[in-house]
């Protein structure tokens, strides 16, 4: 994997890229960065052209014109600008947490350009308004515990609260966060975006009630021990989506693509290549997870 810095949609942007073939963009969640895909980029790049961006205001990507309020539209526009910049005409999207919501919103905006969706453990996309507010409040509190004083220990503890097995947290990611969160303005930007997500004005960006509008094949990967989501809501969402596959990951928190990266990479590849996957709803919770090789 490798990094590029570029001006995209007027915003200084960092992204990871690797591979060639069918394009796949990886979209991280709120308060983290493109580095979260460090266990996926090179693996998936064997079959696909991968781009893993730092979304607006995250990682090493700037905030551009955004000064507060719901960040969704800014982030989607920036994402689309990057897709154009790297020459992704038709592409698939894999989004983690809030990144899944951004992926769905991108699909709604540029309908025919998005070929498939992978939604990873996303409360933003599936919880009720009340449930989502509570979840974001917890995420915000957790994120601030690291950003207020970004010691290595605080960064580790923050992620530890959302991993089933904290020993699976990659050291590389923590080291990156120690630098990322030390930069001036990071905490304030994080605060603005999280408050923007909790803003009543964000209601118009909700997708939980619009799942039936998704017209492309969609894979949902859900951590069965993820405190930020409710499995039942994933089932409801999958049932709303015409071509959906639901795979629960047991012994897994909020970051299946990190915590069980080999299984995630395998199921993502299978899905993108139209191979058969055991859906939880037919074969039982975590059936596909059990069927694919462990790390």
């Amino acid at each position, binding site marked *: *994997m*490798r*990094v*590029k*810095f570029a001006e995209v949609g007027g915003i200084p942007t*960092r992204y*990871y890229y*690797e591979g060639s073939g069918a394009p796949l963009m990886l979209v991280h969640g709120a308060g983290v960065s493109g*580095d979260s895909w*460090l266990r996926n980029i*090179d693996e998936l790049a064997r079959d696909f052209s991968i781009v893993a961006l730092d979304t607006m205001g995250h990682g*090493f990507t700037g905030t551009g014109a955004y000064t507060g309020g719901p960040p969704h539209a800014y982030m989607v526009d920036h994402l689309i600008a990057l897709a154009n910049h790297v020459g992704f005409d038709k592409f698939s999207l894999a989004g983690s947490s809030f990144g899944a919501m951004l992926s769905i919103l991108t699909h709604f905006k540029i309908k025919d350009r998005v070929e498939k969706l992978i939604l990873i453990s996303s409360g933003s996309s599936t919880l009720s308004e009340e449930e989502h507010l509570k979840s974001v409040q917890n995420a915000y509190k957790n994120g601030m515990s690291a950003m207020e*004083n*970004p*010691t*290595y*220990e605080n960064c580790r503890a923050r992620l530890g609260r959302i991993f089933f097995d904290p020993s699976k947290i*990659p*050291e*590389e*990611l*923590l*080291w*990156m966060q*120690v*630098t990322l969160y*030390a*930069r*001036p303005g990071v905490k304030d930007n994080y605060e603005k975006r999280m408050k923007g997500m909790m803003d009543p004005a964000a209601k118009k960006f909700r997708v939980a009630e619009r799942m039936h509008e998704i017209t492309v094949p969609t894979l949902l990967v859900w951590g069965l021990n993820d405190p930020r989501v409710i499995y039942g809501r994933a089932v409801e969402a999958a049932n709303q989506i015409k071509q959906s596959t639901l795979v629960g990951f047991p012994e897994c928190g909020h970051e299946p693509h990190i915590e069980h990266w080999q299984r995630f990479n395998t199921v993502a590849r299978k899905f993108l290549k139209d191979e058969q996957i055991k859906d939880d709803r037919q074969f039982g919770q975590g059936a596909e997870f059990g069927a694919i090789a462990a790390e």
Partner: protein
Amino acid sequence: MRAHFTTVNGIRTRYHTEGSGYPLVLIHGVGISSESWLRNVDELGKDFWVIAPDCLGQGFTEPGDYKSGPPQPPTIKHLIGLLDQLGVDKFAIAGSSFGAMISILTCFQLPKRVEKLILVSSGSSTLPEVELEKSLKESYANGAKAYHNPTFEVCLKRLQNVFYNPDDVPREVILMQLTSYRLPGVLDAYETRMKGLMDFDAVRPYRTAERLHEIKVPTLLMWGLNDPRVIFARAQEAAAKIERATLVAFDKCKHFPHMEHPARFNRIVRKFLKGESMEDETRRAAE
């Protein structure tokens, strides 16, 4: 342990830090940055105030005005600027590779403030010109590959060349390099620095190999026995020239004792800084 960003003489600067009390400054070598002390900052931070900066034009520290010539003067000026900003008065300084040369020169420049020196695997400080030229060319060939095409694989292989056990290369360092090598101006800064170092007429005034006898402070030298960049015999010669020198050999170790054998490295540094007996450590080359 945490990182900080600050501005020193208008130059945006990153440093890692941990601990309180007596200041210990850690200076990385060329083509790498303060992450390379990742196995040492927290441990040594238990007893000392550890400050590990990214030197001028490296890691996440900007190059400032440095555009040509010997890198030593602007690097040292920037370092002293940072230490002054942090309120560091008297301190010990440890340098790896070229960082050891910077440490010695800083000691010469601030004789009242540098109290102890730690020199780790440093050809720059100890090799005669002809041998240093060869060593720098090899280092440049190795490093340039990574700077020009910083993929994970390329950056990993580059460091594996100078580690005794390739599995010991910290992946944390590699991930940071993927980004830091792509920051605007970083490639140019590396080229400028290496060209500056290989202009032997221009850097001659900054050589330390012929001035080692001038070092009056207690000095600890730590050297890998398998270092391709500088043979161990040169470390023995250097130690012999320094009045109050202690030399500790590291077996099964190439260019980075502090990353390759961190537990032993940290223990020895702590003993040295606390003025404890080093006899145990000098008698052997491993744990």
